Structures are given as C-alpha cells and as structure tokens.
C-alpha cells in the first residue's frame, strides 16, 4: 500500500437531509390546545361541575375537581396530540416497504417526561392530602371523630336511617323528629348520622355531604349551606327491597324562615316528641327486644320482630 493511499481520508458519508423538528412541532400543536382546554374547564365547565356550590363542602369538592381536571387535560391532550401526529406524519406511505429509522434513547426527553409526571403526581398527592384535611375537606369534618370542627355552635341535625326513610331530629329545638330536612343559609350544620336497623348512607347530593348511617355509630359531617334552594337526599347504600325509593328532598332557607319553621314544627310535633326516647347520638337497638321480652313475660303474643342473636335460626 502506498503512503499516499495511507494518508487519504475515508470517503465522507453523504449528509442526511435535515428533517423537521418533530418535538417542536408537537409542542406547538399541544400548547394552544392545552391552554384553551384549561381555560374552558376553569371558566366555562368548572362552575357547572358536580356537586355545585350550594354549600361550603360542595364548593370545596367542585374546586378540587376543577384543579384535577385542569392538570389532567394537558396530559391527555399531549397523548392525543402525539398519537394524531404520529398517525399522520409517520404513517407508512404507498410503496414504502423499508423499515422505519432505528429508535435511540433520548435522555433529555426521558428526563423531562419523568420530571414532569413526577411533579404532577406529587403535587396531586400533596394537594389531595391537604384538601382532605382542611376545613370543608372530605376527610376533615367527617367520621365518628372528626379531626376538624367549625368554630361556634353549629346547628345539630341528627339523621336517622331506617328501612326505608330518613328522619331528622333537631336537639337544639326540643329534640323534635320530622321527615323534613330544613337547614338555614349561612349557618354551620353538624349532621349526626346513625341508623336504627341496617347500614344506610345519607347522601345530600347538592350539599356535598355523604355519610354512612350505621347502627350504634354517630357519624359526623359538617357543612355550611351557602345558598337557599332545594337539594336531593338519597340512600347510597343498598339497604333492602325499597332502597331505590329511599330518597327525599331537603330545603335551605333563610335564617329567619328556618327559625319560624323550627318553632312551628316544634309545637306541631310536641305530642309525638314526648313519646320519643331522649335525644342521644345513637339509639340502643336492643330497646325493642327488651320491650318484646317484657311483653313475652306478660304472655303477650305478636310478630316479635327485633334484633335476633346470631344463633337464631332463620337469617336472610
């Protein structure tokens, strides 16, 4: 081999034509769509998201849903944009039988993806935890031992589940019991939810309140109605044959209207209030068996329906 041949550089590979910057293209497509989607979610759709803004807790839940939707929309739009871009730009053309270009790792893309998604997930974890704990949050003012309580003296309303009707007691108004749920606007309310038989669940939809009604348990939920109007109450725990019919309607009225209603209802129901058991956070389910036993001792026959011990023969 000659010296000249040794010194000659190798023939240069033909320069590949500079391709479009796909990343920039996708970004420029995604950015305006994501901004528009977030604005639509926050401004147009957000105020109509369930459960509305009838109470403090409902408004708080709506805010949480709006925040999560605003964060989720750009992610979903990015996936859809990338998907659409790939379908259009990288599709196999007619007569093209070659393999596509080899895939290579891109540390910048990978690091960006991991960083962004981690930040979003961690933010949502922190946000969700804080929102559960703060006032009006779903986890704060609810449960047998709420970790948060509103200041002042909230209106106490006991919700009593029984197959297949909710009744409501107002201990601060003489302990009357009624099938009507009436609440005052702008006043903190403490629901004390319990059951006399099976497990029910008190769901005041527009108030953003849902609490299980378990026999022997005082389940507490706080809310502050912010607007007057009607709301729906449903049982959200399958509780027997007529579970589907276990619903009614509540009302939020002005404070003065509430006081008038409570005072007149107290008088109207005075006779039945006198025969109710004294107000308690829960009611002993063995009261009826005790009465039945006393009657049985006296030789009184009857249907004798009551809480039966587990060894009792016929269980549903």
């Amino acid at each position, binding site marked *: 081999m000659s010296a000249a041949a040794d010194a000659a550089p190798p023939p240069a590979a033909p320069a590949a034509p500079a391709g479009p910057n796909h990343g920039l293209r996708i970004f420029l497509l995604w950015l305006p769509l994501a901004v528009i989607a977030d604005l639509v979610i926050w401004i147009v759709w957000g105020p109509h998201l369930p459960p509305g803004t009838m109470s403090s807790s409902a408004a708080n839940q709506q805010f949480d849903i709006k925040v999560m939707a605003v964060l989720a929309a750009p992610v979903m739009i990015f996936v859809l944009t990338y998907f659409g871009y790939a379908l259009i730009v990288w599709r196999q053309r007619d007569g093209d039988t070659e393999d596509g270009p080899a895939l290579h790792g891109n540390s910048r893309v990978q690091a960006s993806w991991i960083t962004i998604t981690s930040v979003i997930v961690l933010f949502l974890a922190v946000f969700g935890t804080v929102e559960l704990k703060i006032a009006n949050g779903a986890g704060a003012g609810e449960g047998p031992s709420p970790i948060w309580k509103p200041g002042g003296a909230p209106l106490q309303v006991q919700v*009593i589940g*029984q*197959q*297949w*009707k909710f*009744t409501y007691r107002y201990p601060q108004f003489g302990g009357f*019991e009624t*099938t009507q749920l009436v609440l005052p606007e702008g006043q903190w309310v403490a629901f004390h939810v319990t059951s*006399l*038989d*099976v497990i029910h669940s008190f769901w005041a939809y527009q108030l953003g309140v849902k609490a299980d009604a378990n026999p022997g348990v005082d389940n507490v939920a706080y809310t502050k109605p912010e607007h007057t109007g009607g709301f729906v109450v449903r049982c959200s725990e399958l509780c*027997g*044959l*007529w579970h589907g*019919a276990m619903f009614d309607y509540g009302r939020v009225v002005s404070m003065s209207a509430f006081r008038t209603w409570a005072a007149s209802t107290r008088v109207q*129901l005075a*006779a*039945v209030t006198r*025969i*109710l*058991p004294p107000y308690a956070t829960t009611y002993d*389910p063995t*009261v*009826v068996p005790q*009465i*039945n036993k006393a*009657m049985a001792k*006296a*030789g*009184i*026959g*009857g*249907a*004798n*329906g*009551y*809480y*039966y011990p587990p060894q*009792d*023969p*016929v*269980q*549903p």
Partner: protein
Amino acid sequence: MSLPVRIATLLVAFLAVVGGAVFILIHYLLGGPPVENFTAGVRPDTGAQVSVVMQEDPQNTVSTRPDWVSYFIKSPTTGAWVHTTLFTVPAGSRVNMTILGYDGCTPLRNPYWGRVTGTIGNVIRVNGKPTSLINSWSGCNVGHTFSIPALNVNVPMASPGLTATLCGTSPCTSGPHKVVTFSFMTPRHSGDYIWQCRVPCGGGFLDGFGGPMQTIGFMTGSMQVVA
C-alpha cells in the same frame, strides 16, 4: 359418540335451557300476587270515593310461608279475602280504608311512626274512636303500620289487647281484632306508590326486617294510581 347420540344430547341440552328460561319467566317475572282493581266504574279525578278493605294477620296459612305475618285484601268483585298486597285505585279520588288488625302487638323501632300522617284530618278511627297518635312503647297496642312514604301516609295499626287469643287461620274471619278506618286522597296523576309496614315484624329475621317485610304479598306492596 355417534351422530344420533350427539344430536339427542344437543336436543336435551337445548330443551333444558329453554325450559329453565320459561320457568324463570313464569315463576319470577310473570308470577306474583294478583292485583285487586278498585277503579271499575269510577271516573278518575272527580273526587269519587272507593272503599278498600284489608286485614293483617299473625300468620298466612294459605301460603308457602304459614308463619309469616301478612296483609290480605278483600276483593271488590267477589268479596273474598285475597292473599295480595297489590291494588289499583283511581287518581284524584278519596280512598276510604278499613283495616282489620288481627295480629298481636310489637313495638315500633322508632316511636315516631306512631303518629298518624297523610290521612284526611291526620286522624284515624280505632273501633270508631278518633286517634292521631299511638305510643307503641307504652303498652300492647300496635301490631303493624300501613305507610305510603311518597304520600306521607302513616297509620299505626292498633292490635288486640293483652289477653287476646289471636286468630290462628288465615284469612281471619273471627277472633279478637281492632278495626282501623281512615281516608286519604290519591294524587291526580298516575303512578305506583309502594306501601310498607314500619314495625320490624319479620320474626326470626335479622333486624326483624327480612322475610315478610321484604316480600310483596305479605307486609309490603304497591298501590297503583290510574288517571
């Protein structure tokens, strides 16, 4: 396996499936208590009156569950007692109810339901005596209730006294009982209105609310309003 055997096997399997479907259709979907019709000859929404007569018994000896408490409805056409809790009434009419309470007493789990609501005047008559509240915890005085939640109708059913020897064969035609009468107006539009008993009288069942309390034809049913 030979061809005839395979065909026969397939045929048997096919017939078994069809037979099962027919059985489910007839026994569960189309079966059930009859509906007593109180609309014959009555124009809806005219304030006309219909009379419905029922009884509640300590047992139901004409059913496959003889130990279950049960309501019966008196047929408006034959006058016979029918084992059902389904009936039809005209819309916008006054229903005059007479219920014969043959069953013994059981306290209400919630004494609140001892209050009469939803009847005309919020009153019932027990053996002719006007009553608007019965305290079921104060003595042997309530057997069941007749309640239509959607119409806010709640009627505690008075029971025979302490020493009564209850009727033992259904439908009861004799024996100690209380006669409860009341009236209420039906809505002006059509609809199905469920009714139930609020005394936990499903003896032997968890919470007393199983068995007859959850079975149409015994202690719960439906009032169909026809416009």
